[in-house]
């Protein structure tokens, strides 16, 4: 087990290194959620709209980033570096877990950036709740990242498949989680779909937690949903990685 941890650390730090070497590439990719904050949030009614909107946007940026991360593996499968790593004694689960864990880092950076930008505009930060919110989000983005890598592994030699599936799933997940507009006023079927979307519970939990409401039922639901996505991602991802060649 300790050697699995050591192998995971090797993969994790390899994945993280380009990010550390060239932080601007990450900062640049984080600009997108800021457009939603700048160009969409002002359209929302009510004074406390920012308080409602910002946690959702943090989850959204995690969804965008983590779901795309498989494309890095896809590229490494084409160039040959994935193959090179498969011939090393690194344990197969580590090849996936190390990569998926790395997703936490850009997620934290994005969350910090979004909060920093929003506080001057009246966003109230409740630190304790926010930190617990980030723990939940970490589980969620590990799972999303792992699923994205799984998709990459099964799209070997067919990048179009990766992008088609990723793009097809991205917006339903986002819209049904009620990130941009509340679901409560929607028709019944839409609410039913929303309840089937694990991201809904994560978004609800983040909203409560970022408002300092730690002991809400939504916190537990969010934790369970994020843990379920995280676990599911790792299980299917490790299985896919073991079959990779």
């Amino acid at each position, binding site marked *: 087990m300790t050697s699995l941890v*050591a*192998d995971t650390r*090797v993969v994790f*730090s*390899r994945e993280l*290194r*380009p990010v550390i*070497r*060239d932080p601007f590439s990450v900062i640049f990719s984080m600009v997108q959620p800021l457009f939603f904050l700048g160009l969409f949030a002002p359209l929302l009614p009510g004074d406390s709209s920012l308080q409602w909107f910002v946690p959702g946007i943090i989850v959204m940026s995690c969804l965008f980033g983590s779901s795309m991360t498989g494309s*890095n593996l896809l*590229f*490494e499968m*084409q*160039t*040959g*570096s994935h*193959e*090179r*790593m*498969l*011939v*090393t*004694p*690194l344990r197969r689960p580590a090849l996936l877990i190390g990569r998926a864990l790395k997703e936490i880092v850009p997620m934290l950076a994005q969350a910090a950036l979004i909060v920093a930008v929003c506080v001057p505009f009246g966003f109230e930060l409740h630190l304790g709740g926010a930190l617990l919110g980030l723990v939940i989000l970490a589980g969620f983005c590990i799972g999303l990242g792992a699923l994205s890598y799984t998709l990459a592994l099964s799209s070997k*030699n067919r990048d179009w498949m990766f992008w088609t599936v990723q793009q097809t799933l991205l917006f339903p997940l986002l819209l049904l989680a009620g990130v941009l507009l509340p679901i409560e006023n929607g028709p019944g079927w839409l609410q039913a779909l929303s309840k089937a979307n694990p991201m809904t519970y994560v978004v609800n939990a983040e909203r409560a937690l970022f408002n300092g409401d730690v002991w809400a039922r939504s916190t537990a639901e969010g934790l369970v949903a994020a843990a379920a996505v995280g676990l599911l991602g790792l299980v299917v991802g490790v299985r896919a990685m073991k079959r990779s*060649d």
Partner: protein
Amino acid sequence: MIETRELTKHFKEVRAVDGVDLSVARGELVALLGPNGAGKSTTLRMLTTLIPPTSGHAEVAGFDVVRQQREVRLRIGYIGQGNGAGHSQRGRDELISQGRAYGMRVPAARARADELIASLGLGEVANRAVSTLSGGQRRRLDIAMGLIHAPELLFLDEPSTGLDPQNRANLQEHIVRLRAEHGTTIVLTTHYLEEADSMAERVVVIDHGRIIADDTPQRLKATHVGDRVILGFASAHEAGEAARTAGGEQRGAEVRITSDDGPRLAARLAGSLAPVSIEVIRPTLDDVFLTLTGRSLREDATTLEPALVEA
């Protein structure tokens, strides 16, 4: 070092590798030669634990490639057809994480990386992003990564494909030197005849997933093709007489004789028959392949894209 029995790989209906029995001793430098799609890379991929065989058995460095993958992986180095270093990474970083992947501690991995960077002439580019390196530089980095843990057995899959002649020569020199200095066992695949001819002391010719010949380049040529000695005479009449005495085939004022040692025969006949000209044509490995299969390796090598066929 390598022992396979009836090693077989089927991809759906295609028998990519069809019952290969191969045994490689410690310290050998073996080239697997064959046209694209012959099964060379598939064989290599099974020996390096990348894909499981459909049937048959293979032991590499003393361990089973299916049941003891980790033991095999710890002992071999592999340089694939692609580039091993991630394009967004720096060369030195990749070398160090490669060393860590083999269980080296950071200081040891760093020291070994420095050593390889120096010996492969990568000093100026090791701190640059891999995507900015030239093809030859990337290939040298690949070699450095394959050697980070000083493996006793090194596999190279089409190592010089896509390199210009100068870089190809450079690469071959590194491989030969590596063997001379460390006694590393080396198995490489190639469809470059000259490469197999000049580097390997043992060439395994593969076609349609089977081994069709296995020997030193010299003996392959002598056994399957032979040298051709062409003696020129002043007249067809003289040539006719020479053909009667020495054997061989007369063509006008020329006599052609096939021999497994052309230069020696030529020297002998030069004295006894007094021809006006002598030419000795030594066969290439392509002639060997042509004799064995009726096809030339050369046309194949130029018309097909290796990555597409053997992926």
